[in-house]
């Protein structure tokens, strides 16, 4: 009998351990450091994230490895997502430094929770067992509940936190119910073992029920219609950097979980979940985009746009082919750059005398902050899928995966939706470039925020013109999905 944990396992879990250690150090330092010096915690966390990223790259070999008796896989697929999470977390922290000052919040527990959420995401991406995935999901979710309500004196933030918490709990319950049904049906929680068991057992009503519940639970996490009702309120109420992190990190993590469970664990039920996701995808794209058209608040608009983007990404999962999975990965990575960048501009608009998240606050931004306005232009075009930005390359991959897998109508609905979406993205551009200036103090942009913005712009443009490295990385990663995960011996 192999031990639960061997030193070998610990070696492969170095990145996660590093991040967990860093989070604990932040917690301790927060208690020790004087209140005025807590800003340094952000920089410490940033360094930890970078180091973890380096560790992830080092740990990931060409051949996938399964550790802890099939609980966790260390493969390129997980590494791709882990790097995405670390990037998103780093950008979040860069965006937060000045924002927290303006809001008068202390960075201590904030940074700690961001690191915890990232840790949870990393387990979600690596998990090859329903249990490890669920534990990762809970870690992430609880951190986000608190982060959402982080602005204690702000009622909107409180309200968002309560809504998110209660609905999140229900959805997690749903997911857990589905998982337990799956366990009851197959007698195992290991995804590969489930796949093997299902292949011999065939389809059954209870299995379908389990699939529906799992899809619904994940659908809530990725804010897919009809499980999206929480998203606009939560996105609007949460601190802006957290909104960004929520819409990028949490969404990407949920997609990694979805891919793991469906593609790796439930290929036998693919007819069922494809049907469900198809409906989900069409609804999500359409409702998200149409609702976004009428928003006057940028955070709400980006919330609905984020809903719509979940719909696009689902196209890749539905296609289910290696190309489809690769396109999901590509789009999520691209999305990280553009969405974080767009939120960086929104964060910049938050000043001592203005909330700055209304569309009209952006009026004349180009003459006040040309750099930020140009950056926002790039992000909006990219979100709308106009070349030569990364968003176009991402959409190109998604739609080509759909056509390749013969989902032509899905692709048609997708492209038409992206046309609709252009309308509201261009509205932002209109305000920035074609309206006279808004009142209020000058939006200030500190070095940290500039860095975040620059990462977003460079990522969006470079991947739009020369996407080759990302494409190749994603294709390699997509191929490792489902290669390992069988425990050496059954429990």
């Amino acid at each position, binding site marked *: 009998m192999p031990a639960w944990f061997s030193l070998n396992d610990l070696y492969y879990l170095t990145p996660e351990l590093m991040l967990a250690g860093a989070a604990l150090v932040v917690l301790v330092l927060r208690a020790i450091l004087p209140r005025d010096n807590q800003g340094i915690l952000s920089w410490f966390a940033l360094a930890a994230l970078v180091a973890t990223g380096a560790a992830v790259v080092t740990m990931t070999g060409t051949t996938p490895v399964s550790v802890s008796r099939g609980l966790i896989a260390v493969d390129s697929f997980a590494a791709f997502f882990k790097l995405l999470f670390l990037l998103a977390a780093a950008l979040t922290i860069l965006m937060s430094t000045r924002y927290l000052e303006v*809001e*008068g919040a202390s960075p201590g527990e904030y940074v700690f929770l961001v690191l915890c959420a990232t840790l949870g995401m990393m387990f979600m991406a690596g998990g090859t067992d329903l249990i490890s995935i669920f534990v990762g999901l809970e870690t992430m979710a609880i951190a986000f509940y608190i982060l959402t309500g982080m*602005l*204690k*004196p*702000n*009622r*909107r*933030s*409180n*309200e968002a936190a*309560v*809504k998110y918490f*209660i*609905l999140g709990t*229900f*959805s997690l319950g*749903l997911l857990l119910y589905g998982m337990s049904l799956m366990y009851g049906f197959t007698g195992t929680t290991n995804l590969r073992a489930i796949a093997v068991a299902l292949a011999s057992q065939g389809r059954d*009503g209870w299995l*379908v*029920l389990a699939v*529906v*519940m799992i*899809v*619904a639970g994940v659908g*809530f996490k990725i804010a897919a219609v*009809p*499980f999206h*009702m*929480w998203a*606009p*309120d939560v996105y*609007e109420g949460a601190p802006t950097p957290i909104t960004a992190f929520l819409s990028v990190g949490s969404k990407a993590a949920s997609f990694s979980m979805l891919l793991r469970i469906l593609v790796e664990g439930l290929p036998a039920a693919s007819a*069922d979940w494809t*049907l*469900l996701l198809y*409906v989900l995808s069409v609804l999500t794209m359409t409702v998200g985009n149409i*609702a976004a058209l009428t928003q006057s608040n940028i955070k709400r608009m980006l919330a609905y746009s984020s809903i719509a983007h979940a719909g696009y990404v689902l196209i890749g999962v539905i296609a289910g082919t290696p190309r489809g999975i690769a396109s999901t990965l590509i789009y999520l990575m691209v999305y990280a750059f553009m969405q974080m960048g767009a939120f960086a501009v929104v964060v910049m608009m938050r000043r*001592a*005398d*203005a*909330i700055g998240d*209304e569309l009209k606050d952006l009026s004349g931004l180009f003459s006040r902050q040309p750099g930020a306005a140009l950056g926002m232009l790039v992000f909006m075009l990219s979100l709308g899928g106009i070349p030569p930005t990364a968003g176009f390359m991402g959409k190109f991959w998604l739609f080509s995966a759909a056509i390749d897998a013969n989902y032509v109508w899905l692709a048609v609905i997708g492209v038409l939706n992206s046309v609709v979406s252009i309308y509201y993205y261009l509205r932002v551009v209109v305000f920035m470039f074609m309206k006279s200036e808004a009142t209020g103090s000058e939006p200030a942009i500190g070095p940290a925020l500039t860095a975040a913005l620059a990462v977003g712009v460079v990522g969006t443009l470079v991947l739009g013109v020369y996407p080759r490295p990302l494409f190749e990385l994603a294709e390699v990663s997509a191929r490792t999905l489902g290669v390992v995960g069988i425990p050496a011996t059954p429990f």
Partner: protein
Amino acid sequence: MAYRVTKSAGEALRSIGALSTVGLAFVLAIVIGAWFGSVLDGWLGTKPVFFIVFFFLGLAAGMLNVFRTVARTAPRGPAPGKTRPGEAGPSDREFRGPDE
């Protein structure tokens, strides 16, 4: 937790009442959806397509029920702290309900 749902005891009781029905509303929506789906399947002989779809919709409706209840009872109103005292700033916005 620094949030107070309501001010008076009466309102508090009402909130508790509303919140206590959440579980029931959630489950009920799912059961109705699943039942309706299976009935449709029985009529049309399409087992299990409608069951899946309506079960799914039931889940969504249940979620929506929960959301509505929470939205009714969650803290709301102007958001202090958005503007620093003494400084002119944009007025606080009203709470917005769920948009469907």
